[in-house]
């Protein structure tokens, strides 16, 4: 099996963070979180957000943290960089449910996935690839300059390309 070669330039997007740019970006160890990528078909540019919760309920301090505000901020920052929404495609991974049967577990992974998809639909953005649900953690790496390639590594070591 081919091993990912970590690019020293790769920017880690931590929980609740987002970034728009051309460098490779990675979110490690997504459980119920979603790695949301918005890629522009032109210009080798795009953005990633590490979404933790489905609904901002009006909060604006950490746009990358919530599904609704994450989609909003990525679209607006990409637009500011000269991309049109019609050129944008989305790829998403994560939304797992790792520990079933705990009282605090309200299927947050599933709700995150749903909320991201709803927000994307609201912006008429096509979902070009997704690897969501299940029980396993994932690490994702996105390469804006390589045609928007997104590599998903599951906890069991399998690699998937979106």
């Amino acid at each position, binding site marked *: 099996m081919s091993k990912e070669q970590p690019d020293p330039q790769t920017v880690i997007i931590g*929980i609740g963070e987002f970034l728009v740019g051309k460098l490779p970006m990675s979110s490690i160890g997504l459980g119920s979180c979603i790695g949301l990528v918005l890629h522009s078909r032109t210009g080798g540019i795009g953005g990633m957000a590490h979404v933790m919760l489905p609904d901002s309920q009006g909060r604006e301090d950490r746009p990358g943290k919530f599904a609704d505000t994450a989609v909003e901020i990525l679209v607006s920052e990409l637009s500011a960089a000269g991309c049109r929404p019609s050129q944008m495609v989305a790829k998403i991974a994560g939304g797992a449910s790792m520990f079933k049967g705990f009282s605090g577990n309200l299927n947050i992974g599933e709700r995150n996935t749903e909320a991201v998809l709803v927000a994307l639909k609201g912006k008429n953005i096509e979902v070009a690839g997704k690897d969501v649900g299940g029980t396993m953690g994932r690490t994702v790496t996105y390469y804006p300059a390589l045609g928007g390639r997104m590599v998903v590594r599951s906890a069991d070591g399998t690699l998937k390309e979106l």
Partner: protein
Amino acid sequence: MLLNSQQCDALRELGNIGAAHAATTLSTMLMTNIEMDVPDIKVIDISQVHQYVSDELAALVLFEITGEVSGGGYVLLHIPKNSVIRLTNAMLGMTEQDRELTEMDESALLEIGNIMVSAFLDATAGLLNIIMLPSPPSLTIDMPHAAVQSILASEGFMDINEVVLFRTELRSDQHKIINNLFLLPNEPMLDEIVTMLENLLTTASESPGTS
């Protein structure tokens, strides 16, 4: 800030006592010495969790803390993958290193988790003069960051931006086994524990009455 440095010290001491008891049970089960570090307590931003918890495969045994505290706090036993087989081999009296994990390993991990975490909670609760019990455990072989992240996104934590990361490492040099105990209290539980600790310290510093 969730905690000042004095509160961190008190919590570290509490964790130290709990971890020492967990280490004793591990030492008894493996019939070997267990080394233990002073617990590491950090208040970190959620975006920085990846600097302390990796995505490298490990056995993860999760317990919810129940008893005389508000719910929503967790204890996570983290055993790096290369320690897992050595640990269960030592427990089950086997020697083969290069093998797949079986159901027997999984029961052994649940059992060792149960015993260690019960000892950990017993000792900490005893000091606070309350009762704390672990829920039934849940085991997964997965990425530690994904597990911690899932806990932080769960109901009890909900909308947090900072977290208290409490970690202590237990090692058996003889068997080359490393275990990490993480304590992840949500804010209401953290507040309760800190208040109890502060009351304890105040009571201890007052001289006994002379009536």
